[in-house]
């Protein structure tokens, strides 16, 4: 099962990079800074109608 082992290692490293590095440090949802849906909507309406 040596290929199996390489594949598992690959998958785990990849998931760590994607979820623990990219998601946490680089991909913060832009609208996450607004608490309510209403604020998010207002922000987008403002962006789209300027």
């Amino acid at each position, binding site marked *: 099962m040596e290929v199996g082992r390489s594949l598992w290692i690959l998958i785990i490293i990849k998931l760590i990079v994607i979820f623990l590095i990219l998601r946490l440090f680089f991909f913060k949802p832009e609208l996450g800074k607004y608490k309510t849906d209403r604020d998010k909507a207002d922000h987008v309406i403002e*962006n789209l109608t300027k």
Partner: protein
Amino acid sequence: MLLTSSLVDASRLQFALTAMYHWLFVPLTLGLGVLIAIFETKYYLSKDEFWKKTTQFWSRIFAINFACGVATGIILEFEFGTNWSNYSWFVGDIFGAPLAIEGIFAFFMETTFFAVMYFGWNRVSKGFHLASTWLTAIGANLSAFWILTANGWMQDPRGVAFNPMTARNEMTDFWDIVFSPTTISKFGHSVFSGFLVAAVVVIAICCWYLLKKRDREFSLKSIKYASVFGLFAIAMLMVTGHTSAQTVSKTQPMKLAAMEGLYRGQNGTPFVAFGILNSKKEVDNDEDPFLFKIEVPKVLSFLAFSDFNSFVPGINDIIDGGYTYKDKNGEEKLALPFNEKVRKGEIAKRALAVYGQFKDKPAGAQKDTVLMQAQSYLDENFDYFGYSFLKSPKESVPNVPVTFYSFHIMVMLGGYFILFLLIAFWLNRKKIIEKKRWFLFIAIISVPLVYICAEAGWVVAEVGRQPWTIQDLLPVNASVSGVSSGNVYTTFIIFVVLFTTLLIAELMILFRQIGKGPDGIKWN
């Protein structure tokens, strides 16, 4: 707020890179899953251990590709939230619903049965194992279906109503979205492109064994099935290519015009089979679009409308308007000129702004009247909302050379693969394939070609629809978030490193396994 073009370009570059890398892993999963299921069915019916060995070898190739590709698509979803936040909010649940179904149902199904397929030999009954293999293949293709539903909606938005209160599109007809002709054509075409990729990869690996004079029976039998499977795929690619062109002609005429470098249309428009574009040609000059071209009379009219004499509008016709066409609901309409679309878009935008200002005011007769009026202006003009962000007709035209050449590369390679598969089938049937070393080499070279063909298809679909992220409703420059372009470039570099490492890892593990061959595989 319209953001600087460098941010828009950085975000687009990043998205394009992620999507294209992702699509390097996906097509083989789509096609090889089905081929393996066919091999295992053969084993189940014949009880011949040869077919078990064949199934197991190809399953291992599938597993390597699957392990490297899995989760690369998730990054696209991150990008929506971070770099394309206006867009993500604006699409509302249209994107959420199909992607949630994909995540929960199809992907879950695929991975669960994949585990049985991979680890279950000798642990579950033959029938259950076979069912798991088929369900893995079906799950992978179902995953693709839900993702393509979301993509199809962006190219042909329907089954929704825009709610100015929330600035989101809300689903009004789920089935209209799911069974939109664009989605169906796209699904068929993408899945069959995956089948073709798998057929070519299988033939190429077997041809390599034949070149090395090893694993002869395994290779000849695999080629037999893969070439028939590939011929079926390419026939279906022609059919769905035609239906795709038909849906594009109705919903994205500008994309079709760019695919063919067509600036002025006519009744019975010829198809440019081969052409070299004139780099001096712009929308607003009289240069000839081509330095050289070979045309097939009337074929573009047929490809687009199944009628050799129909009118196909060119880029300038679409900008000028004034011709009649049938819209996606089959209604005859007069095409509006670009300026009129912009005017309508601006009315819709102003109505949304007024709505935004009044929606939080205290209730009262004045508020009700203003909101009602704004709503009616929006309803009347919303179809052109996106045009309010465009400053000149040029901005409504995609990159013609990229769209044109990608389309022609795809179609020409499509022609090449018909020939390739017919020869593979015939040489194999005559039992002379291993003597034709030239063909064995060509088969190996065909692997990059089939990936180029599939990637070119996506370039046509995605570059050809520019400037829109959602056709006519939202252009790229209004879709991006206010993040810094430096940030986007940093993640871009991380991706290049991550994905290239994955690709190299995949190829290394893959080559090692291919080197071991079907007899070198030990299963528990």
